[in-house]
């Protein structure tokens, strides 16, 4: 009988201590969970902004790969030729033509690596400056 009483006491003590232990750790676990959820929500907001920016960039339109590949080797000679032919000093003292050449030169420099744009600029230069 004593043994049974002792066992019952032991069980009661262990269950009490176990219960109080679970409560403490449960609180800690809930706090941790709260922190994790908060972090995920904050990160989620950042991700949304990131995804929006990405979506905008991906909708910018098609890329002309053919032009990029051919420009890598063919744009530079055309650029050098055009930039020499469209130099404003070549058209002095005609100020109107000098202004056109100046504008064309800056556009040619901007399109230095774009073969298609350079071809269009050459045509424009031929029409406006008779190069």
């Amino acid at each position, binding site marked *: 009988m004593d043994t049974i009483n002792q066992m019952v006491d032991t069980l009661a003590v262990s269950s009490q201590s176990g219960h109080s232990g679970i409560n403490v750790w449960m609180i800690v676990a809930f706090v941790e969970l709260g922190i994790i*959820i908060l972090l*995920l*929500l904050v*990160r*989620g907001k950042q*991700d*949304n902004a*990131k*995804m929006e*920016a*990405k979506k905008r*960039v*991906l909708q*910018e*339109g098609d*890329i002309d*790969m*053919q032009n*990029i*590949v*051919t*420009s*890598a*080797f*063919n*744009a*530079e000679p055309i650029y050098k030729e055009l930039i020499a032919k469209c130099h404003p000093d070549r058209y002095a003292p005609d100020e109107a033509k000098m202004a056109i050449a100046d504008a064309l030169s800056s556009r040619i420099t901007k399109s*230095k*690596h*774009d073969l298609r744009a350079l071809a269009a600029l050459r045509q424009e230069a031929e029409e406006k400056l008779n190069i």
Partner: protein
Amino acid sequence: MAIITNLWNRIIEWFEDRQSRAALIRGFNRSAKEAFVHGEVPVLMEASVSRGDPSYRHMYSKMLDSGFRIKAYAGRQLSKQDIMAIGATILANDTLVRRMVVLGWDTLQVHCDVGNYGCQWRLYEMIMIGQQNNK
């Protein structure tokens, strides 16, 4: 609920990114091959994914394959000017560079099939330079 939505979006984004990255590389390789076959360029170029430079990382960088590598099959060592010209042509196209950045690439590498010489550029920096030029 928001967490599950974010997680789901991330999974979808990962698959879409893979598809877009593969499409970009395929597009480049197809154009390079066609240009070479038609005699428009003297060198065959091939793009692939590589390990990028860890110091070039940005917010969109992929964990492992953040390098965009272009290999030029010239059969000889290309000069630095040639390699720089290939890189400069890629970098001059703002739309392409922006797309590469958001698809997770942070390093552009150009080298040829002979020799150990090559050049690499930090893509994110090029966007900043492009924005400054546009202003």
